[in-house]
């Protein structure tokens, strides 16, 4: 994985020293909160409901064991013993103290980390396929480009004060596991006519108040020209994106207003004026960065292991964990291990310091020192030898992160909601926990099969509810927490924004409503059909009827629920 060079290290140190000075001046009363607020936000420090929150960048979701151990140390020493992994593959500490934040930033700098550009109207953390470099369906490793984009976008002088925040995602695989079509810019590594690799570029996707699936801007861009082309897109947006209206400030609104053809024309025009040579990466620099991501020298091994098979026969939990969480690796005899932060009763995406250390230790012992963070708020050990799988599992069991529900209904994506967040309308976590409890029986969850369920506490959609097969959105209805349910969303190659089913439900009625939706799916599904496929085939009507009663029947089950 990438290591800071002297330039990176010196820069991060100087920013940390600068923030230490700013905090000292703030505490001494030399600068006001008004003056200080933008400074702390530039260093990822928010004020939330109960306390400050520090959001730390995890570039494209890649961590070394040493980095994860350092996050554990910070959680234990400077927070309340845990951290929260987000849908941007970052980590948030929800109990940060202003006076200790400079020390925390120093601890981060010790392991090549920081909290820069995790807030504000700049280019945020670029996300990618959590299986980058190891997936069997990969054309080329997208981490190299994610790192190049990180370097290009970090304190890029032109793009630090954009009309609004900006998110980029990139995948190098056939299957999109990075939700690229829900990003301001989404990129897919593709093969050109002559077999050379390049990018398909999509623009204007996003969640929030006005959810859009990105549109194709260019079907093939030679990869050497990526940075100049990105620069052209950013310039058009920076110039014409709306700064007068917060709700219209994202690039998606500009793309919709201009139309994709006109937007494309403007980008191409800008691109033709750019001095490509000064922006595009020279081959030697590309090679230098790519070398950090060279494939590990793994020795291919047998694709079955007697120890694993024996344990699978004897231990149903292990068997189900292997079935759901363990995926094939590019090198035979190796596997990708998904570690779900979705244990029953536990806050989705939260990990304790002990758990972080346990995962780091397993990565060190059996995972070639690498951990990934996924936007589904889980962790991954991307390089585990099959012969070590049982030991890894036992380690995860001991740490309490061995639940085998990857991509099942209990693998819920949830934002912190009103339990932590200042912008929330309603709580997300209790709703997620209650639903997880209803489907805690693993055989039931497995029978339901692949189903994305997402919860957001407000329309900002940090829980990606628009792209959930079942999406739940917290709304405020006369001072009480209500929840709107959407169906049919998808984050993948067949990306679609979910549609609202009907009037919202009070909190206590949501789990029943979800059970009704799932029961409707099970009643209608055909052999082997996942939830989304059934929904697309039969449409909203059967779900609506099950939830709200037949049209004009008078007796709405929702009414009964509300009055209950």
């Amino acid at each position, binding site marked *: 994985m990438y290591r800071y060079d002297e330039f990176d290290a010196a820069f991060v140190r100087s920013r940390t020293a600068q923030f230490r000075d700013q905090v000292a001046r*703030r*505490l*001494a*009363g030399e600068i006001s*909160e008004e003056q200080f607020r933008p400074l702390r936000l530039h260093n990822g420090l928010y*004020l*939330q*409901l*109960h*306390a*400050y929150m520090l959001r730390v960048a995890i570039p494209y979701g890649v961590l070394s064991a040493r980095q994860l151990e350092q996050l554990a140390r910070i959680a234990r020493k400077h927070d309340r013993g845990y951290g929260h992994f987000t849908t941007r593959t970052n980590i948030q500490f929800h*109990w*940060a*103290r*202003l*006076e200790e934040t400079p020390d925390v930033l120093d601890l981060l700098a010790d392991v090549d980390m920081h909290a820069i550009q995790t807030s504000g109207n700049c280019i945020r953390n670029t996300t990618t396929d959590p299986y980058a470099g190891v997936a069997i369906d990969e054309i080329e490793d997208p981490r190299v480009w994610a790192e190049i984009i990180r370097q290009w976008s970090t304190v890029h002088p032109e793009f630090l004060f954009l009309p609004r925040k900006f998110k980029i995602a990139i995948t190098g695989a056939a299957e999109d596991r990075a939700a690229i079509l829900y990003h301001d810019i989404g990129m897919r590594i593709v093969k050109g006519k002559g077999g050379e690799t390049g990018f398909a570029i999509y623009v204007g996707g996003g969640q929030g108040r006005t959810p859009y699936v990105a549109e194709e801007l260019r079907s093939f861009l030679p990869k050497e020209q990526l940075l100049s082309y990105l620069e052209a897109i950013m310039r058009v947006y920076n110039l014409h994106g709306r700064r007068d209206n917060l709700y219209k400030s994202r690039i998606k609104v500009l793309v919709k207003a201009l139309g994709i053809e006109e937007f494309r024309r403007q980008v191409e025009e800008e691109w033709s004026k750019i001095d490509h040579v000064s922006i595009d990466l020279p081959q030697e620099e590309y090679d230098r960065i790519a070398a950090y991501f060279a494939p590990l020298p793994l020795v291919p091994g047998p694709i079955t292991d007697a120890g694993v098979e024996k344990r699978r026969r004897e231990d149903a939990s292990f068997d189900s964990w292997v079935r759901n969480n363990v995926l094939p690796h590019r090198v035979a005899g190796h596997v990708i291990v998904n570690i779900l932060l979705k244990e029953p009763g536990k*806050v989705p995406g939260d990990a304790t310091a002990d758990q972080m250390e346990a995962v780091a230790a397993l990565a060190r012992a059996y995972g070639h020192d690498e951990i990934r963070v996924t936007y589904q708020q889980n962790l991954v050990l991307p390089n585990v030898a099959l012969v070590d799988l049982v030991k890894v599992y036992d380690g995860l069991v001991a740490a309490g992160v061995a639940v085998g529900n990857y991509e099942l209904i209990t693998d819920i994506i949830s934002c912190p909601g*009103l*339990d*932590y967040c200042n912008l*929330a309308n*309603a*709580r997300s*976590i*209790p709703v997620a*926990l209650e639903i997880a409890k209803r489907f805690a029986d693993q055989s039931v969850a497995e029978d339901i099969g692949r189903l994305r369920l997402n919860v957001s506490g407000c329309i900002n959609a940090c829980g990606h509810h628009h792209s959930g097969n079942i999406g739940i959105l917290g709304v405020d209805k006369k*001072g*009480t*927490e209500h929840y709107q349910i959407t169906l049919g969303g998808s984050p993948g190659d067949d990306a679609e924004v979910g549609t609202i089913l009907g009037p919202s439900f009070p909190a206590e009625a949501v789990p029943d409503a979800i059970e009704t939706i799932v029961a409707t799916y099970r009643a209608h599904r055909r052999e082997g059909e996942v939830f989304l496929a059934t929904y697309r085939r039969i449409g909203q009507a059967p779900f609506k009827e099950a939830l709200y009663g037949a049209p004009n029947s008078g007796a709405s089950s929702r009414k009964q629920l509300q009055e209950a």
Partner: protein
Amino acid sequence: MPNIITANLLRTGDVVYFAGLNNWVREIGDATVAKDKDELSELEKTAQRDVESQRVISVYAMDVELVDGRPEPRSVRERIRAALGPSV
């Protein structure tokens, strides 16, 4: 409607309630209650001095309910804040 004043401590970010000059408390029940507009503007004026001395940030007045004479939060948001931690 009775009101109290709440804020976060600058240094730590802790949720606190105003109980007199230089006296911000963690327990909402111990906060000073303003029973009407006049009392509230008096209270706000005093609290403002602690903003100026850089003790607290994000200061605002909030509605409360009086239970046995002690203030209790009314909104879900303020109930969660007053509990000093998440509901889960």
